[in-house]
């Protein structure tokens, strides 16, 4: 047989193939990976937009629906970006399929980039559909659309990295769901999705400033409706620093092959 040779080789094809595979993976089970989170977010929107939202106003000048929608979009982005990398990589580790990748020329940067971009795509797809549904209940002023998009991308990037890290450290599927139930979900709910932290009595308001998700949610809301508990600069600065820390951590683990290569 004719063996493969240098001329036929494309150094970025392994990356594009892995990216394609990761996108196909969540697309194939889209009922679970796209439809389910969209339905959940739709229910939140219905409750806080069409029912309670009509009777509540906790920030002057904005309806409650307008206030809560950016947080719900961000929740969809965060949960799904995290779920994509964590479940895909952990399943590969758990079922042994990871060895199929480890023997290929896919480099660690390509590995991280492919998993991250697929997770970002899933998170941003869910976020976009949640936003489209939200237009039925309230329209957002989109004060700084570019900053809003950047914040959404930053959140999806950050939680794609966190998903990779969680998948590497996890010993079982239970551990992955513990990350979601006992870490991400409480941080989202306490990070100001449903209320501005300025209404909290002290010291809870100060404690909320330690929650990294508060900066993502607040920065995104600030960009979309022009109201935030902190300045753009603080939200972006904090989120970028955290994204870099998570990226370096994930890159170090994958570059080293920690728990991937014996």
């Amino acid at each position: 047989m004719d063996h493969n040779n240098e001329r036929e080789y494309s150094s970025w094809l392994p990356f594009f193939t892995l990216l394609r595979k990761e996108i196909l993976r969540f697309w194939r089970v889209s009922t679970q990976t796209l439809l389910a989170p969209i339905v959940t977010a739709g229910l939140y929107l219905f409750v806080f937009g069409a029912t309670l939202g009509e009777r509540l106003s906790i920030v002057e000048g904005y309806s409650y629906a307008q206030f809560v929608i950016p947080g719900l979009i961000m929740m969809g982005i965060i949960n799904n970006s995290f779920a994509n990398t964590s479940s895909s990589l952990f399943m590969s580790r758990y079922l042994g399929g990871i060895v199929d990748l480890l023997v290929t020329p896919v480099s660690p940067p390509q590995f991280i980039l492919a998993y991250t971009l697929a997770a970002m795509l899933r998170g941003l797809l869910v976020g976009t559909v949640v936003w489209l549904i939200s237009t039925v209940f309230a329209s957002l002023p989109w004060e700084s659309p570019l900053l809003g998009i950047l914040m959404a991308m930053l959140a999806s990037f950050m939680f794609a990295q966190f998903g990779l890290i969680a998948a590497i450290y996890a010993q079982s599927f239970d551990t992955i769901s513990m990350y979601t139930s006992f870490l991400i979900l409480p941080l989202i709910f306490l990070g100001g999705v449903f209320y501005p932290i300025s209404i909290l009595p002290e010291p809870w308001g100060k404690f909320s400033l330690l929650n990294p998700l508060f900066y993502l949610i607040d920065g995104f809301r600030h960009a979309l409706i022009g109201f935030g508990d902190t300045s753009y600069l603080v939200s972006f600065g904090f989120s970028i620093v955290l994204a870099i820390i998570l990226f370096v951590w994930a890159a170090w683990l994958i570059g080293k092959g920690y728990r991937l290569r014996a």
Partner: protein
Amino acid sequence: MRLYIRRMDALVIKNLHKSFDGVAAVKGIDFSIRQGEIFGLLGPNGAGKSTTINMIAGVVRLGSGQISAFGYDNQKDYRHTRRMIGVVHQEIVIDNFFTVDQALKLHAGYYGVKDDPVWRQLLIDRLGLEPHLHKVMLKLSGGLKRRFMIAKALIHRPRLLILDEPTAGVDVELRHGLWEFVREINRQGTTILLTTHYLEEAEEMCDRIAIMHHGDLIAMEETHDLVRRLSNRELRIWLVQPLENVPAGLEECRPELKDDGRLLLLNLPKGGEVGQVLSQLCALKLPIRDIETDQSNLEDVFIQLTGLDGGNDGP
């Protein structure tokens, strides 16, 4: 025996070490595999074969030492070496998101090689995967999973194919079919490194054999030479009249009487000629009824070297 034109070795391993939690699994082994040969790496479970293979493939990190494939270092130039190597893992690898056809197409891409429909179809045909192309792995039988894994390992047309126990748990007919296919791709220029528990198959398939035991390489040479060098040939002489004592003059052959003196066992010395022993027997005028010879095989050599049963090779 084959003749090789001396050229760059397909694989060179130098002073390879690996430990897990302080326990040495591979203890400084050296060997090389010539291009175009079928090389067998044998040994009992826990001998270090799979660890060695996984270090070559990149699944296990090197403890220390050096591995190069076709002149490229497998650490510094890992993208080159991995592209030239195809691996059939011992454990069945399952990805239930994709069908056989989809997985094969994706797999070529992982190696940076565009999908070649002609080559893919050839593999599908030769490995009998056509009726199962649109099934996910979970729906395949054990034998089909093995065949699929071989197709997957060959989809990027590697120059070195590594088969780690490819026929474990596979029925006889399929085993024969797989080995025939391996021979075929070897004839077409692919170098083969294999491990198997079926020693008779290793003896039949491999040009050279290395035997590992407790992380060390305890033997390595041409299969034929290894068997000849280490094997014992036994001459069984059935006598018309029983003997009471072992005849004098045959001490070199470690004679032994059995079956109430009716059977004389002689061990032929290594490199010894049967004709010479027969002349001695004629000179002794023994009443011979029948003569049998028994040549040991690779399994006997394996047992002799490792002290273990080749088919049931202990911990």
